[in-house]
């Protein structure tokens, strides 16, 4: 004989289809608002900074530490061999270094002659650690552990291994979101270093799995651009600082309009194994003059 359990006072509940309808309208509203303005970024970003980022930082630190420890243990034997090899390499490199010193002197001379700015060594940089990657598998954005408190701002360029990774598209007090150039929704205005021809570099999910990114709109009537040429960010980009290495051309095809060329670029950064990035603390719009 079970007693009839009476719930304490039937609470008023909204039927779920109405709730769905209301929330749908709310979502559409916020999509429209964020499409046109950036009203929400402030409060939501600080929410993220309080609740999520500290954990991501902690877990990533622990994860990196564990990976490093296991790597250390497994690589002692390898290190001994490598040590031998490296010693030989040092000798070779010393010779190379001397020649390079000479070339560098020549380069500075030439630069002075052309009054070119030096490459990106002169920009102020800050290192940051990647603490989280995109929740989905479609785009390649990630979160780093420095934010506006460290002087970061939207549109600052991000580099790793001396080459372009992407740019900051969202910033919170102690975190920033970076959109990488290999993301399917990203494109960069680039330039072939050898011939100064402009082209558009755009990420492509399909090609990225094979290790390439796409380029298009290369105007090159005289066939000066060849495979292996360096591609850097161009001077006409409004977001990216000029002269940052993007990658090397790996294939070139003629477009069907016979005017432009397109093809693929091998990016210079290993996006798969990237843990630490450098943020250039300078905005393109500020260095214009």
């Amino acid at each position: 004989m079970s007693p009839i359990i009476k719930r304490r006072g039937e609470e008023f509940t909204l039927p779920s289809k109405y709730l769905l309808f209301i929330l749908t309208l709310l979502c559409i509203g916020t999509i429209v608002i964020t499409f046109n303005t950036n009203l929400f970024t402030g409060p939501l970003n600080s929410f993220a900074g309080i609740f999520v980022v500290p954990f991501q930082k902690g877990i990533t630190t622990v994860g990196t530490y564990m990976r490093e420890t296991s790597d250390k243990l497994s690589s002692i034997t390898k290190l001994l061999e490598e040590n031998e090899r490296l010693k030989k390499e040092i000798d070779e490199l010393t010779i190379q270094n001397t020649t390079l010193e000479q070339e560098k002197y020549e380069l500075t001379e030439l630069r002075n002659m052309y009054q070119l700015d030096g490459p990106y060594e002169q920009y102020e940089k800050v290192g940051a650690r990647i603490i989280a990657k995109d929740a989905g598998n479609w785009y390649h954005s990630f979160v780093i552990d420095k934010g506006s408190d460290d002087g970061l701002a939207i549109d600052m360029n991000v580099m790793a291994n001396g080459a372009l990774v992407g740019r900051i598209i969202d910033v919170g007090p102690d975190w920033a979101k970076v959109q990488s150039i290999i993301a399917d929704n990203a494109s960069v205005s680039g330039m072939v270093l050898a011939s100064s021809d402009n082209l558009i570099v755009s990420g492509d999910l399909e090609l990225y799995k094979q290790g390439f990114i796409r380029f298009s709109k290369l105007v090159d009537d005289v066939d000066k651009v060849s495979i292996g040429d360096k591609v850097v960010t161009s001077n006409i980009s409004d977001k990216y600082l000029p002269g940052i290495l993007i990658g090397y051309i790996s294939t070139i095809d003629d477009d069907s309009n016979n005017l432009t060329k397109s093809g693929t670029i091998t990016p210079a950064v290993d996006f798969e194994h990237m843990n630490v990035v450098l943020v250039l603390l300078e905005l393109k719009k500020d260095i214009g003059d």
Partner: protein
Amino acid sequence: MNIRRVIYNFILVLVSFILQTTVFRALDFGDIAPNLMIIVVASTGFIKGDRSGLVIGFFSGLLIDIFFGTYIGFFALIYMYIGFIVGKFHEIFFSQSIAIPIVFITIADFLFGFICYILMFLFRNKFNIGYYMMSNIIPEMVYTALIAIFFYPVILHMNNRLDEREERNAKKFV
């Protein structure tokens, strides 16, 4: 919804989001990470019904939007509808066995991938659906189903304990 359940769900969503963006990103196979959020949303919908499913879906999606979305509300909308639709099956199927919810989670993840493809790629003239299917949607689905086999019982167990406690509290007030 009492306060205990709200806190439990908040922590569940937060933990899965953090795991998905950190640990499982490190444990990815061929750059594909499992979708823990779908597991949470679909399981909650399946265990508790359409109402809980859509609320959890809304907040999980919102969390992803804050961090990785271009527009706030985009993923919230998708996750909310998935939670709602899976929740509709709550009354039809028995949630204690493991096989049926796993099938639903798998279908939900496939649906999610497909919607993402349509909204983010097809609309930008990327028509090679076969490629995206084989390289992204299907691998993610399989990986998610694999993780769900371990994750769903945890969610179910926690939920049953909360249910028991709620029932006991309700009895006290008779």
